[in-house]
């Protein structure tokens, strides 16, 4: 069936069965390959995108559940030449090792920063808890988020 969804401010008509995970539509139909397929079970966070400003697992969100709510992916934040402050911070801290989790990490962290531009260390850690990095760069990821949140780089404020 034909469904209409808004991604990064642009309206799209997609032909998909209604239970198709949003992730598949983003990657296969719209060519937005930032969000990744990790576990497919909402346990790793590699597929994280924003729905109506909240971080969600797109691998377990059926496309028909999106409705009129806006979707935002990492492609909607910035480009290689014009990075968003958070993307720039991830680059400056060299937060990516293999990079597979990073789009999800950025979109989850951005959802927090949009709701609370000055979160404390405990709030950042609790919020990021659902997203995993198998390379173990969590400490660099946290440093990048602290950079944008205006916290000391070592998280000493906690």
């Amino acid at each position, binding site marked *: 069936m034909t469904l209409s969804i808004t991604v990064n401010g642009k309206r799209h008509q997609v032909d998909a069965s*209604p*239970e*198709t*995970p949003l992730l598949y539509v983003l990657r296969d139909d719209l060519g937005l390959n930032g969000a990744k397929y990790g576990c*497919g*079970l*909402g*346990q790793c966070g590699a597929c994280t995108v924003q*729905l*109506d400003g*909240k*971080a*969600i*697992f797109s*691998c*377990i*969100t*059926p*496309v*028909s*559940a999106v*409705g009129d709510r806006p979707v935002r992916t990492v492609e909607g934040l910035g480009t290689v030449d014009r990075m968003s402050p958070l993307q720039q911070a991830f680059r400056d801290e060299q937060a990516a090792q293999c990079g597979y989790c990073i789009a999800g990490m950025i979109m989850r962290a951005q959802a927090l920063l949009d709701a609370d531009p000055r979160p404390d260390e*405990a709030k950042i850690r*609790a919020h990021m808890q*659902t997203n995993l990095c198998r390379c173990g760069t969590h400490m660099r990821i946290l440093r990048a988020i602290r950079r944008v949140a205006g916290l000391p780089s070592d998280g000493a404020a906690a």
Partner: protein
Amino acid sequence: MVTLRRTARSKWWWVTALLLLGLAGALIALALSWRPAIAPIAPPSPGSFAPAQVVRGAMLVKLGDCAVCHTRDGGRPLAGGRPLATPFGTLYSDNLTPDPETGIGTWSAAAFRRAMKAGVSRSGAHLYPALPYEHFTHVRDADLDAIYAFLMTRRPVREAAPANRLIFPLGFRPLLAGWKLLFLHPGETPVDPSRSAEWNRGAYLVEGLGHCGGCHTPRNLAGGEIRSQAYAGGIAEGWRAPALNAANPAARKWTKEALVTYLRTGISPDHSAAAGPMGPVVDSLSQVPEAEVRAIAAYIVSKMGGSPSAPVAPLPDHADAAARRFPEGAVLFGGACAGCHGPGAPMMGQGRPLLSLATVLRDSDPTSAAQAVLQGIAPPVAGRGPKMPGFADALTDQQIAAVLGYLRARYTDRPDWKKLPATVAKARKEGAQP
């Protein structure tokens, strides 16, 4: 004229007399509610307690789940400050570490016993029944002394709890004396000589320190447990605590063995996973000697009654009929749930229970089913065990209601839940941190 004046005068006399009587009554009530302070002591040195008593106290503190309420998010264990949402406002738990200023450092053992059994602070102030003293009143003094020994040997933490935020006039603590008159029934848990020692140990733990009825028994408008409906199911932090009596909705009768497994691991193959406020209970019970959990299970299973050897009904799975009646729920289930809960899903290969076994889907009250979908399930025991992501940000109330309607129709033979969207909206509101 004369008669009129006399009538007026006698009316005034009556009013004055009534006022005086009311005032006297209030004074007597206030006097009756008064409790003396117990003299402060110099904080006892940790070495003054027998190590065996401290170890025993540690175990009893786990059985009583003390740290669950008396630790705030990110705070030091037992240092209090956790907000507790009640229908009467928000209370903050007290600091149970032996800090003399902000904790219980100057409390004698007698003061601690009085707080636990009569709900009175060392200062003489009445404590709110969020401290479940209607259960703790049944705990034996030797056990209370062991708990005291454990608490007084912790490292003191200087941290004062924030002030309570209660609706008027409940900030006035002498009123609690009246509450206790109605709902506090002191005395030991009776021993039933016709039952085993294990069952009686379970009764002592469940009715006393374990305070299971605090969540699993419904409360009246004054917040007191309705004793005539003990274990008929209640409310806990926005979740439904299922009935633990004959009305328990489990698809397969609980056996003692199944309940021991559930209480120690958070899941039983014939039942669903522990979720919401039951998670921390399981975490505590995973750390006490198994014999204590066996005793609890023996007692609770006897409350549920029935024979586990009775013929078992086949588990319902009306996939087609449910999809016809709840097409939107069926689609959402396919995209959001089936990856774990559908036939052949990797999780099902690990022996996780079918949704037909999920107690929350069979309960007459959909609240906990709604909460499980909204908030998900956190692994209860030190990060191990069942885990489910929450869908609060992915699905709307109306969509979750559609899924719940579908699940109920597909996996149970029970009547449809009514007013599902409103229940989901309420669950979402109450599930948010106070």
